[in-house]
């Protein structure tokens, strides 16, 4: 497996380069190639479970008896493996969903190409062990997502995309300055090597840390930096929204923050406090902004901010239980939030609107969509036995264990408000008596249904992970270890 690590980037890149060439002649090629590539990547991601390794790009590790890493290292550990599974699984579901959904738009070839580039960028980010390489692949994922948000070319899509692109570029600028400063201090770009050279960084190091936190906070949409998310995520086509809310903000934001804080800067006390408070504020502000929304996708987008807050809170506690809860919630949120966005896409596909005031009674015409969205809503609101319950429970327990009962209380209250706002969605969209205009709605096509069923099944299966032990759930434990262990070089 170790030798196949670069293929996680090479396969989607190759397919993305190929698709625009042949899409003109072979109309079926984009659908087939896109889904085949995602299926292959998904299978490969599951094959990485339990594997670790460092891959030296170009065979350059060290030279002439010196311990300086020369090339770019890729690094597979528990956390990367967890992220790979999340990214590629959600990617597969979104790609399946796109086959029918994207018929509303022209130019499917470019769509799949950009989609695969986004996946390639995220795979590159979660696998790399090199700071600048991380920046480059982050840009690949970010730029393709700017383009995908604007894919419909309507007023609000273009506007949201422009806002997203401007704030994303500012974030990238911050991150690049941070990388430049870190290079000036440590003389290396290799993360593990840099972590060992940080001593005596002084004020420039503080500046670099601040820039990194602002930059990746923007990418993760934590609260003072969240302005772009409620526009960008609802405006994109539904499968892209699912990817953006489900994995992009995590792979480019939270994942990198976790890597930086725990593996490079070391779990320093002040940084963890910052992450924790960003998390608490996002959690509370996000849910308050969400509850008044009537646009289905916009409501979900605000909940993404709130749920990312939970993840940051868990990670910011810094205890093994807190990290486990945070990472578990991150993966769970990927699953149920992408499911919710796919549901919204199916509703929009069938009824032509996503305004809750104009919907109603859809559970008659669209049983699969209604039931899967019920599963997802219960998951996000933290109702047992769905996966969201367990990860929220872990975070609350970790708060109490760390001697911060007020944070635990805040987490529980936010969870109740989440429940309230999702009851509203369920009531207005699916349960209230049907409106005349919507009596003829048809259920979504087969592939869209199967994508939603796949994710709904995952909501249940993921909760089985805690059967293997509340303290160290299967798949999550190695990831926690990757963050809390020593980040050794080669």
């Amino acid at each position: 497996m170790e030798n196949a690590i670069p293929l996680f980037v090479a396969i989607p890149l190759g397919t993305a380069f190929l698709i625009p060439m042949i899409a003109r002649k072979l109309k079926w090629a984009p659908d087939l190639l896109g889904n085949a590539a995602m299926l292959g990547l998904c299978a490969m991601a599951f094959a990485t479970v339990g594997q670790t390794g460092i891959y030296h790009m170009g065979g350059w590790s060290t030279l002439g008896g010196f311990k300086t890493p020369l090339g770019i290292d890729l690094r597979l550990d528990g956390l990367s493996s967890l992220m790979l599974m999340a990214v590629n699984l959600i990617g597969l579901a979104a790609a399946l969903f796109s086959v029918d959904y994207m018929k509303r738009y022209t130019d499917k070839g470019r769509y799949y190409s950009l989609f695969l580039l986004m996946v390639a960028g995220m795979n590159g980010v979660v696998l790399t062990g090199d700071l600048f390489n991380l920046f480059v692949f982050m840009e690949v994922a970010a730029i393709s997502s700017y383009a995908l948000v604007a894919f419909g070319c309507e007023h609000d899509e273009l506007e949201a995309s422009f806002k997203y692109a401007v704030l994303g570029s500012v974030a990238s600028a911050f991150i690049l300055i941070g990388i430049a400063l870190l290079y000036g201090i440590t003389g290396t770009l290799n993360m593990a090597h840099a972590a060992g050279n940080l001593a005596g960084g002084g004020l420039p190091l503080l500046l670099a840390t601040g820039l990194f936190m602002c930059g990746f906070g923007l990418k993760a949409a934590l609260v003072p930096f969240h302005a772009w998310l409620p526009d960008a995520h609802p405006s994109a086509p539904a499968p892209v929204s699912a990817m953006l809310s489900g994995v992009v903000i995590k792979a480019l934001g939270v994942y990198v923050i976790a890597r930086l804080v725990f593996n490079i800067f070391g779990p320093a006390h002040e940084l963890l406090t910052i992450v924790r408070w960003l998390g608490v504020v996002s959690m509370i502000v996000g849910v308050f902004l969400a509850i008044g929304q009537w646009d289905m996708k916009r409501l979900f987008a605000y909940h993404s901010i709130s749920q990312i807050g939970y993840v940051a809170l868990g990670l910011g506690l810094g205890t093994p239980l807190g990290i486990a809860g945070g990472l578990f919630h991150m993966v769970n949120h990927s699953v149920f939030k992408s499911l919710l966005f796919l549901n919204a896409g199916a509703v929009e596909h069938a009824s032509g609107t996503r305004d809750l005031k104009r919907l109603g009674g859809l559970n008659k015409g669209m049983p699969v969509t209604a039931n899967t969205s019920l599963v997802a809503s219960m998951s996000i609101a933290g109702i047992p036995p769905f996966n969201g319950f367990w990860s929220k429970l872990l975070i609350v327990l970790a708060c109490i264990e760390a001697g911060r009962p007020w944070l635990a209380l805040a987490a529980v209250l936010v969870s109740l408000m989440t429940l309230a706002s999702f009851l509203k969605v369920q009531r207005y969209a699916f349960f209230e008596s049907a409106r005349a205009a919507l009596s003829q709605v048809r259920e979504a096509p087969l592939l869209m249904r199967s994508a939603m069923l796949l994710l709904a099944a995952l909501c249940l299966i993921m909760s089985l992970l805690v059967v293997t032990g509340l303290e160290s759930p299967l798949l999550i434990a190695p990831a926690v270890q990757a963050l809390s262990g020593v980040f050794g070089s080669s």
Partner: protein
Amino acid sequence: MDILIVLMVLMIVGAIIAVETTNLLSSIVCVGAVGFLLSIAFLFLGAPDIAITQLVVEILCLIILIRATISRDLTAVSGDREFFGLTVTLATVLAVAAAGILCMADFPAFGQSVMDRITDPPAASSRYLAAGLEKTGAANIVTSVLLDFRAYDTLGEATVLFCSILGALAVLRRKARRRESEETEGDE
């Protein structure tokens, strides 16, 4: 490096004019001037590769920007948007700049590259300079870093360009959505 300071002061002046002038075309021309000054600065800093690339990329940027804006309302839209009010914004920006400059005072002095400071183990760059030609065969060490030691970055960079061009083409396509009746039909 007095010449460098002169160049940078000129660049700052150019940047301020570019940001503050009301005419969009002159603003773009000023950005071009800043870019060319930057290219000269790179030449003085021992980076001919970057100087060439900066020069040609600058030309292309200018052409694209002028093409994008020409014959539109060049002067109509100017001024600032009410963000927090100008004073607060200016104060924030100045505070950030001052904090940054304060932090940079502790940064290793200009001219002291990482190769001089980090010797045990030697920084990767000293290894590239010492062994680059022998190991990769390329006389231009920047190329050997770019396309051999760190070729994976360059793949990412080519991908970024591919991606943004594809994105621009997707954003600029004439018809983005189909009507209901067209959904079942083939592409274009």
